[in-house]
C-alpha cells in the first residue's frame, strides 16, 4: 500500500504581469487502489496541480508538501518522480518528431525499470496493450504524437500507463475529445491498469460521463486553487445538475 499525500500546497506561476498565485492550499491524500475525481471550472487550477505533481518547471511551489510514502516528491527531478511511480496523462500530449512510439516506449520502460525489458515479452506486451486499446499496429512506427488525433493521443497516454505500471496516475482530462466508443476503450484501459497493479488514480474531468466507467471513491470540487468540497460519487451527479455556481459565489 502506497500513499500520495499533498499538504497545504501553494503554487505560483511567472507571467508577464508578474507572479500569479494559482494553488492556494491544496490538501489531498490518495492511497493505492483509490480513485479520486477532481472536478472544477476552467482555470481553477486542476492542470496546475497535475503539472506540479509531475514537476513541470514552470510551476513554483511556494509552500506545502507532496510526499510519496513519506519521500519528498518536491525534492525529486521530473524523471525521478516518474521512476518513483508517478504518472501524468497529459491534457495536451506533446509531439516528438523523429522518435518512434516503439523507441519511446522501450526507452521509457528501460528508464523506469532500471533495465531493458526482456525483448520477446516486451514486444508481446506492447502488442497486446495496443490491441486492447484498439490502436492500429502502424502506430508503433509513427513518431510520438505526431499527427495523432486528439483521441489517438489520449489512447497513447493510456498505453503508456498500462505498460509503465506506475503506482499513482494523474489523468488530466483524459476523457475530453473522446467519442463514446473511445471513452469506453480508454476507461477500460485505466481499469485494467488499476486491477493489475492497484494503481491510485487522480482523475481530472469536467464531465460525469467518464465516471460511469471509472468509478470514483471520492469526488473533490476544485475552485479557485483549492478543494472547496469533498464527497462521494453522488457529489459528481449534483455538480452535473447544479454546476459550480454555488462554489464560485463562496469563493468570491
Amino acid at each position: 500500500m502506497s500513499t500520495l499525500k499533498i499538504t497545504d500546497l501553494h503554487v505560483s506561476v511567472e507571467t508577464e504581469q508578474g507572479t500569479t498565485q494559482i494553488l492556494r492550499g491544496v490538501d489531498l491524500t490518495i492511497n493505492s487502489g483509490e480513485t479520486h475525481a477532481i472536478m472544477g471550472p476552467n482555470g481553477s487550477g486542476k492542470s496546475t496541480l497535475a503539472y506540479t505533481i509531475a514537476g513541470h518547471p514552470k510551476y513554483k511551489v511556494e509552500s506545502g508538501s507532496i510526499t510519496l510514502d513519506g519521500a519528498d516528491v518536491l525534492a525529486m527531478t521530473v524523471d525521478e518522480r516518474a521512476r518513483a511511480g508517478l504518472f501524468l496523462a497529459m491534457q495536451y500530449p506533446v509531439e516528438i518528431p523523429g522518435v518512434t512510439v516503439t523507441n519511446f516506449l522501450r526507452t521509457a520502460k528501460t528508464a523506469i525499470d532500471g533495465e531493458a525489458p526482456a525483448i520477446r515479452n516486451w514486444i508481446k506486451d506492447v502488442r497486446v496493450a495496443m490491441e486492447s486499446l484498439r490502436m492500429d499496429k502502424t502506430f508503433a512506427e509513427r513518431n510520438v504524437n505526431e499527427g495523432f488525433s486528439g483521441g489517438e493521443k489520449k489512447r497513447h497516454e493510456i498505453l503508456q500507463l498500462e505498460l509503465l505500471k506506475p503506482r499513482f496516475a494523474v489523468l488530466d482530462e483524459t476523457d475530453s475529445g473522446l467519442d463514446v466508443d473511445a471513452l469506453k476503450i480508454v476507461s477500460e484501459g485505466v481499469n485494467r491498469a488499476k486491477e493489475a497493479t492497484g494503481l491510485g488514480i487522480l482523475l481530472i474531468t469536467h464531465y460525469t460521463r467518464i465516471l460511469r466507467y471509472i468509478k470514483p471513491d471520492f469526488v473533490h470540487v476544485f475552485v479557485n486553487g483549492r478543494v472547496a468540497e469533498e464527497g462521494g460519487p453522488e457529489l459528481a451527479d449534483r455538480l452535473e445538475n447544479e454546476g459550480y455556481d454555488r462554489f464560485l459565489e463562496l469563493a468570491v
Partner: protein
Amino acid sequence: MSLAPDTTTTDTTTTTIAEQLGIKAHSDGTGRVAPVQTRSARFKSTNPEDFEAVNGRELDWKLSPVAKLTAFTAGELDGSRFPYSATESAGVSFSWIPVTDPRVGSAGIPEDRASANAWTAATEVLLVSIGAEDVSEITITRDATGQTPRAAHIVIEAAPFSKSTIIIRNTGDAQLVENLEILVGESANLSVISVQQWNDDAIHLGSHFARIGRDASLKHALVSLGGDVIRINPSAHLAEAGGSVDLLGLYFADAGQHIEQQVYVFHDAPQTKSRVTYKGALQGKGARTVWVGDVLIGAKGTGTDSYEQNRNLVLSEGTRADSIPNLEIETGDIAGAGHASATGRFDDEQLFYLQARGINEEEARKLVVRGFLNEIVQQLHVPSLEEDIHAALDIELENVHIASVN
C-alpha cells in the same frame, strides 16, 4: 516540433549584383560591371586572379569567417596528390588524370576565389570511375590530409545505368580546399555522401558540382560534424530531361564552430525534380551555421518539381543560424516549387514529456536531437553510417553537457 522564429535570416532576393560578388572587369575590356540577373549568370572562372581579393562583403562570403580563410582564398596551396584510402568494389576504379582531361570542368567551374585557387593549384585530378550496370558501395577515407593548406580535385563519373553509393569519410587534420565534380550518366543512380568529422581545428572549403544526365538521379549528402570551419557549397545542374536530385544535409555546430552550405539547384531541362533538405543543430557559444538555398527554374525547366527546406534546432544561447532560401522561376509551366525555412529553440515541453516518462534529461535531449536529425539520417540508406552518425551525435551532446555543467 514548435519552431518559433529565432535568429533566422530570411531573404528572398533574387537579383544579385556583380559588385557584391567581387568580380573584376573582364576580357571584354570595357571595365564595366554588369548586374547579374539570374543565379546561372553568376561569374565563374578557374583562374583565381579573375576574382577580386575576398574582403568579406561579397554576397557569397559575407556570412563566412573570411579572416580565417585567407590562406585558402589568397595563399599558395599544395596541389600534389592528396592521400586517401578506399574500399574495393567491382566496377569502381580509381586513377589520377591530368587537369587537361575533358571530364575536368564538365560538371561546373568555380564561382569563388578559393575554389578557383584550388582548381589552379591541383596538379592532378582523382577520377573515381563507376562502370556501367554495376551495383556498388565504396568508402573513401581521407584521414591524412595534414596541416598544410592544400587543394584537392575529384571527379566522380557514374556510367549510364550504374547504381552506386560513394561515401567520403573525412577525419583527422585538414586545411583543405576541394573541388568535387559529379557526373551522373544517363539513367544512373548515384549517392555521394560526404561526412566531415575532422579534428577541431580543421578548415574545409568545398565546391561540389554535379551534372545530372537524362533520367538519372543523384542523392548528395553533407554530414558536417567536426571541424573549425566547414563551408561546402553543392550545386546540381539538372541538365537533361527527367533528371532528379536529392540534396541532403545534416550538421551539428558546437561552440565556436562555423558550418556553412550554399546550395544551388539549376533546373535546366524539362521534367526534372529536386528536393533539398538540410537540418542542423546548434549548441554552445559562437556556434554558427549558414544555409543558403538557391533554386533556379530556367526557361527550359518546364514541368519542374522542386522543394527546398532548411530547419535548425537551437539548443543553447549564443548561437546564430542563417537560413536563406531563394527561388527564381523563368517559366510559367512548372509542376511545383516551394520552400520552407525555420529556426526554433529546443522545446522544453518535449523534454518535460520525456522526463515525465522516467527518461533522464541527458537521454531526453539526445532523443529529441536525434529525432530531429533522423529525417536526414534515414534517407542516407546506409545502415553502418546511420549507427556512426548517431554515435557521433551522442558524443557531441555529451561534450556539451559536460561543458555546461562545469
